[in-house]
């Protein structure tokens, strides 16, 4: 399936760029632009490309812009996508690190929903915050929050994870309750893949699977390991796995990557990436 990854890189001068993603030895290439593989959207893209190679499918395209938090780059990207969304033909989108902008988010969503075949919509990071704030979370196929973001989705009043109320954050073992609450409030996508000590896959309010092995504690502090999971699940969706199967296999592949790398908390996502190939092959061979 054709797929577009939408996000930002942390350089203000990086122009609005759309092209096929090419994973080179130690960097990404999108059109004429070379990007260091680090936490954020580059980590998502690198993981999606590596997994796509193992699955022997075409690599995704990416629509990227530079933004260091001022939001100007993100707004240019939102406007570009909103202007073209109803003429695009991708089967799916993975939205990632963008400055949350509910108005512009809605413009894009409404255009995509007007297509005769609605694409699959995956959201993580800032775009997931905008999707929740908009009240249209249920229009999405999949959200991939971590535990802190899961509490934010469960909190009907929080406009950003920074304002999540303490009683929701207090106990990391309450993820099943948070999932139920997010669905009850209409703040969840159809599917949730919750990244944590134990990964949860939920659909329409029900937990349909969990993945807890192998458990590598050092993965939590490593920046980009959540982004890589969203990248891996993107590749499995591109390969036309069902959403639940894609989530379960992606969770296992991400954990296995950590197990094979045996990292310390000082590892970078780039240190982990070489191990993803073997991990994805192993997960692919599972029945």
């Amino acid at each position, binding site marked *: 399936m054709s797929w577009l990854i939408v996000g930002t890189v942390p350089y203000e001068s990086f122009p609005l760029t759309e092209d096929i993603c090419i994973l080179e030895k130690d960097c990404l290439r999108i059109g004429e632009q070379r990007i260091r593989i680090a936490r954020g959207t580059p980590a998502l893209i690198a993981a999606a490309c590596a997994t796509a190679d193992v699955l022997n499918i075409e690599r995704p395209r990416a629509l990227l812009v530079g933004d260091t938090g001022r939001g100007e780059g993100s707004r240019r990207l939102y406007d570009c996508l909103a202007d073209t969304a109803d003429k695009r033909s991708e089967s799916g989108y993975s939205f990632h690190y963008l400055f949350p902008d509910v108005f512009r988010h*809605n413009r894009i969503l409404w255009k995509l929903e007007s297509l005769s075949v609605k694409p699959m919509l995956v959201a993580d990071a800032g775009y997931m915050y905008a999707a929740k704030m908009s009240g249209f979370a249920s229009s999405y196929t999949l959200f991939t929050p971590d535990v802190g973001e899961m509490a934010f989705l469960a909190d009907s009043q929080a406009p950003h994870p920074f304002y999540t109320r303490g009683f929701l954050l207090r106990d990391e073992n309450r993820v099943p309750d948070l999932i139920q609450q997010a669905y009850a409030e209409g703040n969840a996508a159809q599917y949730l893949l919750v990244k944590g000590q134990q990964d949860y896959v939920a659909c329409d309010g029900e937990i349909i699977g969990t993945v807890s092995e192998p458990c590598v504690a050092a993965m939590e502090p490593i920046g980009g390991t959540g982004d890589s999971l969203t990248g891996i699940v993107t590749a499995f969706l591109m390969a036309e796995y069902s959403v639940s199967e894609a989530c379960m296999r992606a969770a296992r592949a991400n954990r296995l990557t950590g197990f094979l790398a045996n990292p310390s908390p000082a590892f970078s996502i780039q240190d982990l990436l070489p191990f993803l190939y073997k991990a994805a092959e192993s997960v692919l061979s599972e029945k």
Partner: protein
Amino acid sequence: MNFFKKLFGKSPKEAGVSARGMIVFHHTAEVIAAESLLKEAGMEVQVKGPPPSLRTGCDMVIEFPLISELEALRILNDAKIAPIQVVTVEDVLLEPVSLFHVKDFGDYLMVRAANMKITVSKQNQEIVNISGGGCPDVPYLAEAMVGKSLLSAPEPRTLGKTLCGYALQLAYKEIIRQCHG
């Protein structure tokens, strides 16, 4: 999504939670000066009347995009304007996260505040990782801070522009407190 939703959108109450915040000041003069400064910085702001619970004698507050709280506060701080408080545009006032999770990895210590995590080496207090968050300043902050020692790295509040940056600032202050008491 049905036709009416597309045509009219949702009412504010239906359409999820507010993405706007209010900055409350001591004096009207501060509100006016702050409005100019924030508008000059390209921020979409409006002067509004505060709800009863926020009336402090200054009957104006500045409504602004909540996501830009850190940048707004820095602009005001540079101009030596000290607001009383920042709140979300909601019936119930929300407090920023104040709960920290501390995780000990042996040679490394991690602190999480809301959705942001910072990890340092106990041996030399080098910042070895920053993770979590979803706003575009997070990768930018990570590039600026990772690999530097805790006390020589730029503080997130000096480079961050969003609430994720603000959450990282809280985690950063807490990990300094954990390391230095």
